[in-house]
């Protein structure tokens, strides 16, 4: 369906993009869409796997349906963050703000058969977080959080768990040492670690 058969197309024409079927691509215009045409789809939800310097050409490339392989195989490069186009999806700012503040991280409990996810932005303090963690695994183990102590104990088998987290640098730290906001910023995952294993952290 592309025009490449028997034709020599410049590399800019062979970029992987998601074009509208039958979309007319007019003659090259400056970046920024000053011509006022409908925004090329590549400008919108950006599924391009290409370098940013070539982005300007992609919306003007002259292929019908846009599904062409990028020989540069940008598999080595991570896909760029998806651009949010103005007006799409049709969600009010107040709703977008509710979502934006999500910081989901994985939580594991040593010995529990599954991981959970928790949104750190939902809580304002360590106490709230620990209460939530206790609830989260209450169906699995009967752990309890002791007030003023940042640890959990399972009264059934007497095992103590310490809440630990992996920070941005990949180090495992004890939960509770840094101010709350700083913790939220740097925490990448949580682990309720058996006390006996948390030797290096104390």
């Amino acid at each position, binding site marked *: 369906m592309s025009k490449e058969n028997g034709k020599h197309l410049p590399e800019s024409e062979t970029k992987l993009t998601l074009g509208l079927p039958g979309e007319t691509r007019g003659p090259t215009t400056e970046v920024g*869409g*000053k011509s006022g045409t409908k925004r090329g789809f590549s400008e919108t939800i950006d599924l391009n796997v290409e370098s940013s310097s070539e982005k300007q050409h992609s919306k003007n490339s002259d292929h019908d349906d846009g599904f062409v392989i990028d020989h540069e195989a940008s598999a080595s490069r991570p896909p760029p963050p998806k651009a949010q186009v103005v*007006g799409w999806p*049709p969600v009010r700012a107040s709703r977008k703000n509710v979502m934006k503040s999500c910081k989901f991280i994985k939580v594991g409990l040593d010995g529990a058969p599954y991981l959970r996810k928790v949104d750190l932005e939902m809580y304002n303090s360590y106490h709230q977080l620990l209460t939530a963690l206790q609830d989260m695994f209450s169906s699995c183990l009967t752990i309890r959080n002791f007030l003023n102590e940042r640890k959990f104990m399972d009264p059934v088998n007497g095992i103590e768990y310490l809440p630990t987290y992996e920070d941005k640098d990949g180090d495992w730290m004890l939960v509770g040492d840094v101010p709350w906001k700083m913790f939220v910023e740097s925490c990448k995952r949580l682990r309720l670690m058996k006390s006996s294993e948390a030797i290096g952290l104390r």
Partner: protein
Amino acid sequence: MSYFPDEVIEHVFDYVTTHKDRNALSLVCRWWYRIERLSRQRVFIGNCYAISPERTLARFPALRSLTLKGKPHFADFNLVPQDWGGFVFPWIENFARSRVALEELRLKRMIVSDESLELLSRSFPNFKSLVLVSCEGFTTDGLAAIAANCRQLRELDLQENEIDDHRGQWLSCFPDNCTSLVSLNFACLKGEINLATLERLVARSPNLKVLRLNRAVPLDTLQKILMKAPQLVDLGTGSYLTDPHSETYSKLKIALLKCQSIRSLSGFLDVLPRCLPAFYPVCSNLTSLNLSYAPGIHGSELIKLIRHCVKLQRLWILDCIGDNGLAVVASFCKELQELRVFPSDLNDIGHAAVTEEGLVAISAGCPKLHSLLYFCQQMTNAALITVAKNCPNFIRFRLCILDPKKLDPVTAKPLDEGFGAIVQACKSLRRLSLSGGLTDQVFLYIGMYAEQLEMLSVAFAGESDKGMLYVLNGCKKLRKLEIMDSAFGDVALLTDVGKYETMRSLWMSSCEVTLGACKMVARKMPSLNVEIINEHDQTEFCPDDDEQKVEKMYLYRTMVGPRNDAPEFVWTL
């Protein structure tokens, strides 16, 4: 027709209340027109620039309640620059000067200044009700003026406004002898609230029926408030976090048992799902539940809550409920009339939250469903056809597939046939929003079958001008048409310019319309304002180049000509 004195006709007209019906009355004959206009107290103006305050009062001197709408709908999605317009001040100022006995003001998408609110609060001694939806431009200082000066205030309802919170003591400005409050909604406020003041206000408001709190109100205060106001009918919780083993939580459970009148529940802006069971006794009476601002409640907890809500008529939730959750809704909420499913994660468009399966389940289980807003990952024609068969009573059908041009994943075809089935089966359809891969064909169906359609929203759709023309020619009752990023251009715009006089407005952005064509519409139709909105660098836009495409065009009928408050970047042709 035998002769009745005016007073008798007027008395009969008192029973005719809706805006549409009153308009119909006024068209019967001159005599009825006169009686109707002299007795109309509630006036609805869908576009504040269609008429002026002076002419409004000239026609309706008995006006007591005014509803005004400003910016076009797409302003909700940041497509309209903030200062575009929609100022309420001239209206309030004019009404104040003319000594209108204003009791109620309802505004949507308007710019409201503190100055306007202060003037409002001082000018109308009988003022009772202020409802602001999606407005901006004011601060809590304006609210303080309303609280302090409106002695008869019954309703202060703030929905999704952008309010600059000065963290002042606006709530304390309600005088101690103010006991008339029936409805108070400040959920959209971001700042702190004086909790003791709030408790005292609730305690002295025996008629309080609606109370929606903001995030700054903790569960502890909620519990105290509920003890003082068990008569509440509509409750929006603030922050819903506490230790489930605490005394506060126990007290809350007791308080809620006494709240037998709650029919509408919302809030849970911060939430510990473990504490939701306190609300189970309330759930069985609920007719309206809005958890769309509660991303902290995950699928399984949502389902546990919803199982109790057997009388539910309206449900607003996030898509983390999943298709399975919707199937549960379908089996428990047989009275459901309105469903809105909002997206919970816009950054990860790949994950499957809800799909066509959830919608089909709902349509099969909820025969009374008539209003839908559904954000989903994908949709199939087969599903839409099934939905149309199951629910032929849709009045509002708004589908938003997050990937806007996504085809039917099973057949790789556009969704023309699916939407076609919807418009053909739903003979009462008044509002429709399209998404997904769509050709001109869907518009052919809409033009053919959607006879009652009043509002149509289009994005990333169509192939040629024919699409838009099918709609303009076919939908006789069309009032609002809004189009973004679609293949419609000058031919579509110009073929029947007279049509726009029968509509409230037309919005076209990022389409193929040229400046020259817009100028022609303006020339041919002096009863329309044709506005070109040009936010980018002014020098790039050449006013004489008729060939250039127009970024955003908004045209609307008006009786008062071009407005005089348009900002620089808005050009009325």
